[in-house]
């Protein structure tokens, strides 16, 4: 019987030593995705089936014949994480097997091309976990903008040009869209708040029905920052309000983390090359967006 089975609350000290996403994968240095996946898998454990659509994780974790996964893992296509995991989960249920089926998609595969299949699976309340690791652009294809890319950010399809400086639209609030689906569990998390992250994974493992887990995944290659700063940038995202940590059950927010001291968004974007071209007016616009989101989620002005 491991620590988890004894019912101890998960924390860094009693985190299982088991590894189901192993070293030797080929993620970029400083990539947050393997940190997310490795820690999550320690808790989800052996009886897990993983689906990855097209994304960085598919390539760096599973280029044949070098597979980092120690659990069954499959891939079909890009836009169908919600439906692919629905099929696998129903089949395993019919076979009477107790297996957690988990889809791990990027933001492009979640916000954009995959939103239909995701919404359908959530509406049906399929007994699966859907994880979005959100690096705020199509990183695997070379840093193109997605519905998750924040305002002002430079990508290869929103270049900082002579006339237009980066992305003109704000980031879509995907977790809020999922909250509107009236599903058992929605949680947002960050690797900078690892204890909170682990508790959420532990909690959702034991919930039946559709679970949506959304983690911000800083990307040194696409965001253009020093790879040693990944955790620091993730923390600043939370402290600035660019990324908000909460849990929601059946649409109601049951737990929300409020930074002790809210830092200006300027402090978050500093050091990230993707925001380097932003004018003071643009930074103000981004700050206004953060403040609107803050007020909506906390019910008070920042």
């Amino acid at each position, binding site marked *: 019987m491991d620590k988890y089975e004894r019912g101890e609350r998960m924390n860094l000290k009693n985190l299982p030593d088991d590894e189901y996403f192993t070293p030797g994968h080929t993620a970029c240095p400083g990539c947050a995705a393997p940190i997310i996946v490795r820690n999550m898998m320690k808790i989800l454990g*052996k*009886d*897990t*089936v993983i*689906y990855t659509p097209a994304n960085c994780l*598919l*390539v760096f974790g*599973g*280029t*044949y*014949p070098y*597979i980092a*996964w*120690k*659990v*069954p*893992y*499959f*891939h*079909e*296509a890009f*836009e*169908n994480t*919600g*439906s*692919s*995991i*629905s*099929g*696998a*989960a*129903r*089949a*395993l*249920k*019919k*076979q009477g097997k107790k*297996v957690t089926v988990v889809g791990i998609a990027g933001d492009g595969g979640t916000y954009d091309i995959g939103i*239909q*299949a995701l*919404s*359908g699976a959530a*509406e*049906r309340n*399929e007994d699966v976990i859907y994880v979005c690791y959100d690096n705020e652009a199509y990183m695997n294809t070379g840093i193109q903008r997605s519905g998750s890319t924040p305002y002002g950010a430079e990508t290869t399809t929103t270049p900082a040009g002579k006339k237009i400086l980066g992305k003109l639209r704000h980031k879509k609030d995907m977790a809020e869209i999922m909250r509107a689906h009236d599903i058992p569990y929605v949680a947002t998390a960050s690797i900078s708040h690892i204890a909170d992250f682990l508790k959420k994974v532990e909690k959702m493992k034991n919930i039946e029905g559709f679970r949506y887990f959304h983690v911000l995944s800083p990307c040194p290659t696409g965001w253009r920052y020093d790879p040693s700063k990944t955790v620091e940038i993730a923390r600043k995202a939370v402290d600035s309000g660019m990324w908000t940590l909460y849990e929601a059950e059946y649409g109601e927010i049951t737990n929300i983390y409020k930074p002790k001291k809210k830092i200006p968004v300027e402090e978050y974007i500093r050091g990230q090359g993707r925001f380097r071209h932003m004018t003071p007016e643009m930074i103000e616009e981004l700050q206004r967006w953060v403040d609107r989101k803050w007020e909506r989620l906390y019910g008070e002005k920042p």
Partner: protein
Amino acid sequence: MNLKARKMVATGDHAAAYGALLANVDVVAAYPITPQTLIVEDFATFVDDGITDAEFIMVESEHSAMSACIGAAAAGSRTFTATSSQGLALMHEMLPIASGLHLPIVMPVVNRTVAAPIGIWCEYNDIMPQRDSGWIIGFIEDNQEVLDMVLMGYKIAEHHDVLLPFMFGLDAFILSHTVEPVEAPSSDEVMKFLPSYKPIASLDPDKPMAIGTFTPPEYIQEERYQTDKCMRNAKRIIKNVTKEFADVFGRNYHGLIEEYKTDDADVILITLGTVTGTARDVVDELRGRGIKAGLVKLRFFRPFPVEEVRMLIERENIKAIGVYDRSVSYGVGGPLYIEVKNSLYGYDLPIINFLAGIGGRDVVKGDVEKMYKILQDVKDGKTRKDIVWINTRGVKE
């Protein structure tokens, strides 16, 4: 599940749903589209009435239907879906993923026009573009064959020398919504013919493996070779399974093709689908008038019965061949015509393509008679036009 043998009066769609019930499928994932709707409605009734404990996933699109089927089949379950027309087009991306992963999914396709212009009636331009998807592709003549084809489909698809997904076309409305007498075997009899599905690999935490992962050029070509080999093997397995089916259930579908009065025929028409029944009547009438007309029904488009078609010609009585197509490859001719010409490369024999019934227009006996008349004229050297549009406004036949 304990279903007694019975005689039903069933639509083609009901025969398909009942076939899936008899095949004891584990997971169904489907999305409604006219004229496939009766299949999903009937199966939903089986589930809600407790006749089957299959998992029915009512997905939000055909793309998701096939994605869920692939997930379920990869997890080791017997899996079923059905679609039509635009729905099949939307699934197109997922079809080679099912075959590339060697998952024996069975799918009736109610053949319907693909837009534009939008139409809901019978045409084969939905299924023909799936030619290179790695799926076995069959065609159906009547509602009895629909039910039987579901059962044979699983038996063929799940055979370890094949392991390919299996689709078959049934004509929109002509079969899907038209009732015919259908004999349904008992579930016990079916179980003897088609035991439970035993996958050779699946998503099993006790035997973890990667399925369908990112693969460099060092390995993909071999997969393609193996799929090609599976499709070639399918010819042998189709023949064996058809024979076995005849032994158990008494209905013989003669493997890949079915011949009608071809032994001494000097002209033959090659058909797919329901037009075969009409053509049979026409052949009988022409025979009564002393015309040596014959008919060949193709039951499979993939694998294509190249050898069988060539063997017809080897008999040397045939002087002209007509090929009936219900869709057109623009600027070339019907897809079946292309295949027949490919099969008969090197033979000096006129092959005439008849395009008729497109967009769901009825093909009546008079239309088929015209085809045979043209074939007679071609045989006698009076005319030679390779592609003939039948009953088309503003076009001379």
